């Protein structure tokens, strides 16, 4: 089993998919030179200019053209560089791509992957640091993926490329370099969470890089004698309600943690769902961790104030356990 970085895992997924399916192609700014994070490195050499296509700085055209090309039977992988710039193509994504199949009564399909690196990344400030996964989860027609590990960035990206629905694929740009074993034979099924740590006292639900931080927190909790279960949702639509409800049924305690803004974030969806379906089984108050409804600063000490840390997760878990009724 090779040890790959999160970046390399995604490269392998794209490369393998392009080898086996000639309809797959990639388009985005600077792809010919490997992409802004090097996540397309070497692909131009293997697949040529047409299939690893550069693009003008025209996010709306990249997104819109990918839709047209998808409706014609090709399978574009769209690179948005920073998820923030994808906002320049919101009409294309939300009004066009997400609706193309339904609006035309099922005559067309839009099989495509929209890669949007998101998240905090070393002093990038307010226009280069956002995480808007809850936006996409709210839009019918879209599948939403948030891989947090090299293995998942391999398996999930392969599944996204093979998917016949448009997939908003949100890599976390802070973890391109993290490494891990990658089993090329592991297949991902959308809507299936991964239990990153099994446990029985408290359930911690998370995704993307925050799931890694939650694992750290669980390790700390273990040292303190608390057995925490970390549920990494991996895809937010569809999302694994069963895994969450099963875990909560066992633990009776729920902490949800994510990097994005808490208000109207996807954590609210998880908590609301648990409250609706299993509110009476909870033994302590639910705890939600997310960024305050504030903007990301450039200065590192200010930027840090928006981070959800492992310590915060530990405290939240202890808190709900202490308040057990």
């Amino acid at each position, binding site marked *: 089993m090779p040890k790959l970085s999160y970046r390399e895992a995604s490269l392998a997924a794209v490369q393998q998919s392009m080898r086996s399916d000639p309809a797959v192609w990639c388009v985005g700014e600077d792809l010919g030179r490997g992409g802004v994070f090097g996540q397309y490195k070497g692909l131009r050499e293997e697949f040529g200019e047409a299939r690893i296509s550069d693009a003008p700085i025209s996010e*709306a*055209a990249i997104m819109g053209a990918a839709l*047209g090309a*998808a409706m014609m039977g090709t399978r574009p992988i769209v690179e948005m560089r920073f998820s923030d710039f994808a906002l320049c193509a919101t009409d294309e994504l939300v009004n066009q791509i997400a609706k193309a199949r339904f609006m035309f*009564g099922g005559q067309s399909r839009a099989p495509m992957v929209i890669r949007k690196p998101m998240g905090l990344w070393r002093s990038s400030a307010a226009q280069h640091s956002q995480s808007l996964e809850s936006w996409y989860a709210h839009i019918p027609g879209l599948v939403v993926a948030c891989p947090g590990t090299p293995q998942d960035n391999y398996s999930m990206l392969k599944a996204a490329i093979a998917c016949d629905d448009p997939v908003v694929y949100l890599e976390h740009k802070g973890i391109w370099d993290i490494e891990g074993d990658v089993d090329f034979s592991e297949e991902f099924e959308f809507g299936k969470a991964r239990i990153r740590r099994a446990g029985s006292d408290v359930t911690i639900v998370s995704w993307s890089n925050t799931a890694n931080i939650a694992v750290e927190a669980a390790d700390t909790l273990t040292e303190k004698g608390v057995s925490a279960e970390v549920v990494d949702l991996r895809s937010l*639509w569809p999302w694994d309600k069963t895994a969450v409800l099963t875990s909560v049924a066992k633990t009776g305690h729920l902490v949800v943690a994510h990097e994005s803004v808490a208000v109207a974030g996807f954590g609210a969806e998880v908590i609301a769902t648990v409250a609706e379906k299993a509110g009476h089984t909870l033994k302590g108050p639910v705890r939600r961790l997310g960024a305050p409804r504030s903007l990301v600063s450039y200065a590192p000490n200010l930027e840090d104030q928006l981070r959800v840390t492992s310590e915060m997760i530990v405290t939240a878990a202890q808190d709900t356990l202490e308040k057990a009724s």
Partner: protein
Amino acid sequence: MTSAGHNYERGRSLLQMMERIRAFEEQACLAAERDKLVLGAIHPSIGQEAVAAGIMHNLSKEDILLSTHRGHGHTLAKGASSLAMMRELLGREGGCCGGKGGSMHIADFSVGMLGANGVVGANITIAAGAAHAIRLLGDNRIVVDIFGDGAVNRGPFLEGINWAVVFKLPILFVCEDNQYSATTKTKTMTGGDGAAARAASLGMRSTVVDGNDVEAIADTMTDIAARLRDGGPPEFLHAKTYRRMGHTSFDPAAYRPEGEAVEEEKKNDPIERQRAILRAVGMTEDDIQLLHQNAQKEMIDILQKAAGTPFPASDTAFIDVQDIGSPAVEAY
């Protein structure tokens, strides 16, 4: 167009298509106003039929078309069934989009019509992408994308046209210029010399044509289509015409200068102009009337049929959203 070089069969068929489009939209307006059967907005293209007929005459069903909110004529001319279209306008079963899209999203993929669009200018980049796929797939279809004069002020106009030029795609962009953007005279909100000049500055060969002269449009399009099929670079066509009705069938268009619409109808009705051309080369009044009446009959008929068709089955509301995470499986 002199009678010397005139292709009578083509001329007649262009007239016939314009008659069908006109009749379809007249019935659609009646369905909306008289019968209250069309609940959403419809945007008639009455007076603009030459563009649809002239351009589509040169396309096969394999070629690709994208259009706007004002796309009935284009869709019909591309070969869609008038009955399926009317059913769509009435939101009925068997509508070409299953009753889900309505007038603003009319589409018939079986004849290469990949959709009207409710967002002004949004079709431009999508069409460029359709042409991009043709390049990737390596066949020799061509794409035509039609939009209005108001769309030239939207960003995707620049981005989509630049895209087509950069990737040398087999596509024709057509600005169907009816001089109005909803209640606004487009000229007042448009800098410079307009659509064709903008496209030219983006590196595109741009042609201007009389948008009420169906023969001229068909001629121009014959040449353009040949160049595109030969692997030529993308092109642009600016066709100036006039929006005879309001923006939607509900809009009395009281904001227009007194008499403007009447004057335009008198001088520039594309159907009357084509009749005159055909009369001059020997078409009989009877034949002219026959085309008119056949078109009327077809469209009265399909309206009646459409009105008698049931609404779509309720459970279709949740299909064709997506396979993975479908609302038919779990609404939330």
